[in-house]
């Protein structure tokens, strides 16, 4: 099992969700996040003081999947979130030692979907 963490542009969320659904990945958790990367920030000014904002709004997805879904998930995200411009985001893959469904108490790969 793997835990996939993906950072994407906020306005791509709907597309990514659709692509994931088509890849049969329906479960996920979404958080908002601020990202600092290759993408340049922008300048704000408040009452005559300028300042650089280099934390940009991103959406963070956390998706736990069984091994055979890992590549499909990654591909779905890449295809739907890519615009080719800096700031498109990153995907991180972690090993998932275990997974438990609270409702039933099931463990492991059964519990993921």
């Amino acid at each position, binding site marked *: 099992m793997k835990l996939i963490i993906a950072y994407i542009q*906020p*306005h791509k*969320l*709907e597309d990514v969700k659709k692509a994931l659904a088509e890849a049969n990945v329906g479960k996920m958790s979404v958080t*908002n996040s601020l990202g600092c990367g290759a993408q340049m920030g*922008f*300048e*704000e*000014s*408040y009452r005559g003081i*300028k300042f650089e*904002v280099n934390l940009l*709004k991103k*959406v963070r997805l956390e998706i736990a999947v069984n091994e055979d879904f890992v590549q499909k998930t990654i591909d779905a995200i890449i295809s739907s979130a890519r615009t080719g411009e800096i700031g498109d985001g990153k995907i991180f893959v972690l090993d998932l030692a275990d997974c438990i469904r609270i409702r039933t108490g099931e463990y492991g790969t059964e519990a993921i979907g």
Partner: protein
Amino acid sequence: MKTQNTGIKKHRWLIMLLALFFLCGATETVFAENEAISIADVKQGLDTVWVLIAAFLVFFMQAGFGMVEAGFIRAKNTCNILTKNFLDFCMASLGFFLIGYALMFGDGNGFIGTKGFLLMGLEDTTSGLPLFAFWLFQAAFCGAAATIVAGGMAERMNFKAYLIYSFLISAIVYPIVGHWIWNSGGWLAAMGFGDFAGSTVVHTTGGIAALIGTMMLKPRIGKYGVDGKPKAIAGHNIPLASLGVFILWFGWFGFNAGSTIGAGDGFDIARVAINTNLAAALGGIGAMITVWFRFGKPDLSMAMNGALAGLVGVTAPCAFVEPWAACLIGLSSGVIVVFGVELLDKLHIDDPVGAVPVHGMCGIWGTLCVGIFGKAALGLSNEGFIYSGNPMQFGIQCVGSVATVVFVLVTMGLIFKMIDATVGLRVSRTEELRGLDIGEHGMESYSGFQIFSTT
């Protein structure tokens, strides 16, 4: 000259007469020193008080517009709309001072006024009021017409374009329409066109300008899916919008009841006030019922639009109709606004706050209602249709409404085209996605708040 009124009693008539006689002489001299407790002064003082307070209330509507518009759009564009709303009142004050008042209320021909630029060369009083009080009341109206457009074109219009537009509408377009209708020399006024407080002058003008502007701007990114279906882009702060509606309703009492330009013996202002309130209430109820039936949920945003629709609808007829008619006008306006919103969505005209249905459609509807429910006894030129069966007044109302719509479509269409060709009407895609607050003003509306927005 009060002593006389206080009446005279009883016997001793001869002496009374004598007394009266001398008092008339005496009071004249008395007032000379005593700084004028003359009834005419008190009356003018009272009228000024009334109209000034009404002007303050109309000014305050600016806050209401700002809050409604801000509340109904997304957080990322809030600062931008508030800046527009704030500055357009400033610009309208200036423009109406320099040029607008002259074009609107200055003497001239039936189409446009040509005297009184910078308020120079005018008499001290007008319509029985100090000129400055009259000006302030009218200037506040002018600001309202300008700001209506901001809502319809929200979330994607270039800021500089907005500034130019708002100066032009308040200095030129609005005053010309106003001249036709509210200057006694205007061609529509001469026809007997009835628009007591501005369903046409203010709201149709603003609403139709919003319509043409919104059409030219095109919808916001993501508003219509590839399948053409509209998507909901929810407003970010309903309490703010709700407060705004209350402020508008509150200010509207000044808007309508102040349009009497004086307190009189109280009967007119009372009628206008009750009609205003009933139409607003019934507008809210009408929209709520309609939206509940059609969409299965009592949608507050629509109910609030309904109250505003009722207010817009009753603005023209408020002095000419009975309370029961105000109820009907309000109710029907509330129904119209719901269908109006739906219609625009079908036509892919993306009006985030409902400026077109509320001000445009109900402005026209209210204007027509004068011809239907108005009463000659209450000051209208002709008896309304339901009383007389005579469509005369209704016809006049149609002429005025159509003339205004056409004029505004043409002039504002040209203005927006010109602006588009020069500074550009619309912001860039990146800027729209990131939000105009950052793009145009480099600041956030809710610094520190975590806002999760995927549109």
